[in-house]
């Protein structure tokens, strides 16, 4: 975690801050989701408690807190209580691995503005997010309720099916950048579009050098698959309330329910962060490079430390805007598309997205191979 006590302490605090950022974003997102739903459906949404209904968040938290603590007779107590606690872990570990800003140089120290800089970023995030299936299975089986169990089985079959398309859509991205490391991917997307083809260097000044322009199909597949991974509409079959009451969290209430909520929103935030990182330049400001931003900051701050801090701050804001935009799309889609039927969902995952992801891999490989020759 670091070489001396100061660095270790700072890195520890940073990790806790990343986690708290994720947790405190949940009430804001819930508020945004409810107001946004109201806006989309031409109604008000919460607007009575405090200005714009903002105090509704606090009221909800208090309500969650004072709900009766309760576990059904048929439940397996240990699994029933362990599941919501485990629900937090995959989202947090994934979110902490995404770079949020350019590294902060302070004196002799370099602090990456992220939980930890994993060398194998993508593989790590895929690994921890695949653990989310256990949470669902533990909750569903631990509840001792047949609807919860059915919901859990459906949800886990769904997440594993879409993990295939998710993992495969990333092969093209990895091929293009030649790395697993998210920071290296972001630095490869700096500035305006420049690429080498057939021995020539092609540059277009009016487009940012973003991954989506090289891998558009992968972006669509990846974003769709993350909807299924985070159990959001149109893929929230796990809680199809017409058939399954509320799926795997039927028996949960109060703070236990809140922990599941944080887990679900955590998945959304990981998905949005990865979307920004792979396809939209990560923390970079469009059309600029980190070096240009640093020069600009140097002109304002004067000192190297101050300029680095300002650069990090500006990049952090840029990342937050991108993250927020994708989170808003998650909410938007919820009120745009209806829920799929289960067989449609499985067909889409296995028969449409998986073949297209394979096609994307083949096409990317052939194109990368072809443009490497000059004639």
């Amino acid at each position, binding site marked *: 975690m670091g070489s001396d006590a100061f660095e270790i302490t700072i890195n520890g605090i940073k990790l806790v801050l990343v986690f708290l950022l994720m947790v405190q974003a949940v009430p804001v997102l819930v508020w945004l989701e409810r107001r946004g739903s109201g806006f989309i459906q031409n109604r008000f949404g919460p607007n009575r408690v405090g200005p714009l209904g903002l105090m509704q968040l606090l009221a909800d938290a208090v309500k969650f807190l004072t709900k009766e603590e309760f576990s059904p007779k048929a439940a397996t107590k240990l699994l029933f209580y362990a599941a919501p606690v485990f629900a937090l872990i995959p989202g947090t570990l994934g979110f902490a691995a995404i770079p949020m800003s350019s590294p902060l140089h302070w004196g002799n120290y370099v602090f990456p503005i992220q939980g930890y800089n994993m060398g194998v970023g993508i593989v*790590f995030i895929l690994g921890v997010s*695949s653990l989310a299936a256990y949470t669902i299975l533990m909750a569903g*089986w631990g509840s001792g309720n047949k609807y919860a169990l059915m919901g859990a089985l459906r949800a886990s079959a769904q997440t*594993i099916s879409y993990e295939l398309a998710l993992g495969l859509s990333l092969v093209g991205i990895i091929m293009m950048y030649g790395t697993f490391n998210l920071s290296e991917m972001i630095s490869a997307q700096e500035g305006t579009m420049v690429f080498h083809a057939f021995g020539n260097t092609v540059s277009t000044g009016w487009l940012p050098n973003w991954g989506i322009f090289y891998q558009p199909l992968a972006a669509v597949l990846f974003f769709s698959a993350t909807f299924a991974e985070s159990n959001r509409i149109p893929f929230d079959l796990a809680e199809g309330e017409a058939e399954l009451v509320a799926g795997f969290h039927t028996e949960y209430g109060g703070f236990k329910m809140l922990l599941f909520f944080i887990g679900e929103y955590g998945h959304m935030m990981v998905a949005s962060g990865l979307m920004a990182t792979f396809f939209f330049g990560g923390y970079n400001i469009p059309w600029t490079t980190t070096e240009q931003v640093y020069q600009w900051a140097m002109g304002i701050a004067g000192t190297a430390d101050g300029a680095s801090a300002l650069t990090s701050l500006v990049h952090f804001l840029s990342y937050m805007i991108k993250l927020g935009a994708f989170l808003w799309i998650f909410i938007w889609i919820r009120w745009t598309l209806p829920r799929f039927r289960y067989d449609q969902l499985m067909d889409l995952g296995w028969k449409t997205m998986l073949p297209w992801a394979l096609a994307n891999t083949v096409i990317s490989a052939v194109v990368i191979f072809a443009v490497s020759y000059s004639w």
Partner: protein
Amino acid sequence: MTADSFIFWMLAAVTLCSGLAVVLVANPIYSALCLAMTMVGVSALFATLGAYFIAGVQMIVYAGAVLVLFVMVLMLFDLKTELGTFSRGKISGLLKIATVGVLAGFLAGVFSMSSELAGKSESAGALAGTEASKTLGGLLFTKYILGFEALGVLLLVIAIGVVGLARSKGGTHAKH
């Protein structure tokens, strides 16, 4: 004791304890979950050795796929009534004790061998992140290409076999 060796011993202890729990716990669901914990521990141990890519693969394939299958299949049973068949009986007790004995034997062997090796080897310079995977990719596609393609065929055979088994008579999706 340095921080790295502390992390290693802690992870080793967690991995071993959850491994023991797999055989000692009566409820098969808990056994499977403990096995998943063991896999996560093994993955973290790979990471302490600097093999980050292998650690990730261990996590994705074993903890994230194989054991999800185990847990899912166990949940298909009505375990509350069938628990007896898993936990009672002299044979299963004997098996457990024998398994623990074999494990202890392995453990003793590992300790005696690793104490010998620990002095000798400088840990191989950990290839940070992607480099290891690049080396692996290079080797896989030059030296071990035949094995790699054979693996593709093997996986195909398994996939076909699975469907054949699921559709054999008596199943819910038997051919009519």
